[in-house]
């Protein structure tokens, strides 16, 4: 346990021999004096001490961390460069009892993976992140990292890291400190035995937090890379202790005791629905019976057009729902996107006795126009003998085509008289279905509740259907 004399020999959570590296292999791939071996031993000891070997899933992303799966006798996932926090999110949200460790270097976490670490931290994913900061890209042979000190020569800064060109070294613990969700943030070092003990404690704490489901824990560990620093292992540790800690001050940044499940703004987790309840949820209320008596005289290729907000799309949905409820083949295809926002909208609906081929209605045999521009746009496209319904409350001009049947109906006025400001679409659909005899009025009334969003207006909508019928009769249209 913490404070006791360090154990000798291999931790149980390491493999006895590293068969994934090579047959009978006993040594790691780390260079002499590298900090990774030391840190990984500390983590392995903590896994042993906390008795979480079976539960642990260790993520090895890209960099010198890539071969951690050679050594850890735990569940292992190798993942792509920088993305371990996203992978960890996927794992943890699937197996909530697993102890997920994201072990990342500085290029991986602070360079290419900056987005993933920041957002995983911000969501407070209850995982443990060990960030190994050795201020260089090790695996690729010694290029500049986001954490490389100013002036430091690397393969890609042969004249030294330049502030104007390369920016300042990145302090990740400080950056984490700016995010509200993490429960534990600490920066430590493996430069001296004294610091090593603190690191050991921080590693332990960060894993204990995950066992207790407290939240996101982040431990930044300064680590030597003698090979790529061009130093002896001893000099590297001295440089770390005397210079690197000036740039990256050690210490605990946050140790919050707030339990994750006590945080404000949390929602209760919804219950897992069994098969029956799931099917009920998916089938919903629109599961309507099939009861058509008569064949459709002609495939209905309907175009409905008007201003956005006039209920053009829901008019189409109502027609399609009526068709479906009578067992017809139907399709509904809207105009959409920027074209629709604030501008004009149109929808194509097909009702047919046979399978619908193209759902695009290029040449409608039924046109419902709710405003003037729609009449201008679609008048020429309708086929001969088409039915053209015009909302005469809004459209001031007459239809020019003489080879179509035109019905003018003051739809907006009739709707407003019925106390409904936006139900002109119901008037138009009612007129169409009555005159075309495509769908009986009873079916229409049965389908209105399935499409209507504001259930409080149901009665008014149903009486508007009646009112429309009376209007058509009074004017000799039916």
């Amino acid at each position: 346990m913490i404070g006791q004399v360090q154990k000798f020999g291999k931790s149980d959570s390491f493999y006895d021999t590293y068969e994934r590296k090579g047959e009978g292999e006993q040594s790691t791939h780390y260079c002499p004096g590298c900090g990774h071996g030391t840190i990984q031993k500390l983590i392995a000891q903590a896994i042993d001490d906390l008795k979480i070997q079976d539960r642990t899933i260790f993520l090895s992303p890209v960099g010198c961390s890539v071969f951690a799966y050679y050594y850890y006798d735990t569940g292992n996932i190798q993942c792509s460069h920088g993305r371990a926090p996203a992978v960890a999110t996927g794992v943890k949200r699937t197996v909530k009892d697993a102890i997920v460790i994201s072990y990342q270097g500085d290029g991986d976490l602070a360079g290419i993976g900056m987005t993933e670490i920041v957002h995983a931290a911000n969501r407070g994913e209850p995982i443990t992140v060990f960030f190994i900061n050795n201020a260089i890209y090790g695996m690729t042979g010694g290029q500049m990292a986001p954490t490389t000190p100013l002036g430091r020569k690397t393969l890609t800064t042969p004249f030294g890291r330049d502030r104007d060109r390369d920016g300042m070294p990145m302090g990740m613990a400080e950056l984490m400190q700016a995010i509200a969700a993490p429960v534990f943030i600490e920066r430590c070092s493996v430069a001296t035995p004294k610091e090593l003990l603190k690191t050991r404690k921080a590693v332990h704490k960060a894993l204990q937090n995950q066992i207790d489901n407290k939240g996101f824990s982040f431990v930044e560990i300064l680590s030597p890379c003698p090979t790529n620093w061009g130093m002896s292992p001893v000099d590297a540790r001295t440089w770390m202790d005397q210079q690197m800690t000036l740039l990256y001050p050690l210490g605990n940044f946050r140790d919050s005791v707030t339990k994750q499940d006590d945080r404000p703004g949390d929602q209760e987790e919804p219950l897992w629905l069994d098969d029956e309840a799931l099917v009920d949820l998916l089938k919903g209320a629109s599961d309507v019976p099939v009861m058509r008596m008569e064949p459709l005289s002609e495939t209905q290729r309907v175009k409905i057009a008007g201003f956005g907000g006039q209920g053009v799309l829901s008019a189409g949905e109502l027609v399609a729902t009526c068709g479906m409820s009578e067992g017809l083949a139907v399709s509904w295809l809207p105009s959409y996107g920027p074209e629709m926002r604030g501008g004009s909208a149109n929808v194509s609906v097909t009702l047919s006795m046979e399978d619908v081929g193209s759902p695009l209605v290029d040449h409608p045999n039924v046109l419902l126009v709710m405003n003037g521009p729609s009449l201008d746009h679609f008048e020429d496209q309708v086929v001969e003998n088409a039915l053209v319904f015009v909302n005469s409350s809004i459209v001031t001009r007459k239809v020019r085509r003489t080879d179509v049947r035109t019905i003018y109906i003051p739809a907006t006025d009739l709707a407003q008289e019925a106390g409904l400001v936006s139900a002109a679409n119901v008037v138009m659909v009612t007129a169409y279905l009555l005159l075309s005899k495509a769908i009986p009025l009873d079916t229409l009334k049965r389908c209105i509740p399935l499409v209507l969003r504001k259930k409080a207006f149901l009665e008014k909508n149903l009486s508007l259907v009646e009112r429309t019928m009376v209007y058509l009769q009074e004017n000799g249209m039916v």
Partner: protein
Amino acid sequence: MGKRLMKGNEAAVHGALMGGCTHFFGYPITPASEISQAAAYYFTAAGRTFLQAESEVSVINMLYGAASAGARVMTASSGPGIALMGEGLSYLAGAKLPSVVIDMQRAGPGLGNIWPEQSDYNMVVKGGGHGNYSNITLTPASAQEMFDFTRKAFELADRYRMTVFILSDAYIGQMMEPVEISGPVLHGQRKDWAVYGDSQSRKNLISSIYMSPALQRKHNEELQQTYRQVEQEVVDYELYMADDAEIVFVAYGIVARICHSAVHALREQGIRASLLRPKTVFPFPKNVVEDFAKRGIPLAVVELSSGQMADDVSLAANGNVEVLRYLTMGGETPTVAELVSSVRRDLATLGSRRSS
């Protein structure tokens, strides 16, 4: 059994839940956002997991993590988002992780626009990311097929340990049609290779890395072996009015629906047009194309791209017959009338060429 009128986008989410999907990770993009929105509602209401990620890069890596832990996982996006997922898709293939991805194709390249194209064909069908790999690719042409194919995709993904794409388009996603929610609810089984954070799975490793060329070669050969098996077992297509064909449209997605109407229009004019509609484009129905080609029946590929699938048709036809290409790009779709006149024109040309 009753049906519900719903969009293809919504039908996909219904199909996913009926297919046993437990985890949906999404990022908004038109015209696929409605899938994430429907998933946000239905997955959450059903006690499954929906999470909006910070980018498509994160999305695909969350899929990687959840699939590693044995879950049935999915996402949905459109061209620019799928392109961002390229590396992750390659990792999924390399690590043999099952996943389901919907691509609601929009027009490109670059930002393009949000109207339908079929220009992601090469990116999706030929892999898209680095390395030698393939994705099973299903091509629905109705809201019902958005439901059926998505449900089935999870079984295929688990069976072959592959990514299964639903390659669709903005119109199929936006269109509402009656959909039958047919059961039963499927469920993923415990996978002996996954990592669950327990003692039975402790020795498992999810990885795509083999340091020795010999092992990496073996891994690649095993993957290719799986793809050959998929070609034998998964290929699917519909032949419509093909018994007496004098010309055969080849089309998928929304274009297949337009061709369906064009077949009728041409037959009314005495031209025996037919339709071959691939329901899978990897595996591609090579044999049926080859069969038409050997019988000398001309093929007319109708596609919203520069001819990406048409290249696969030409490859299968192998020079045995004329492969006509009716291609539209930018978000427009051909009309039935345009297809009818193109076929009339080209059949006349072919006829006079043969008789001369």
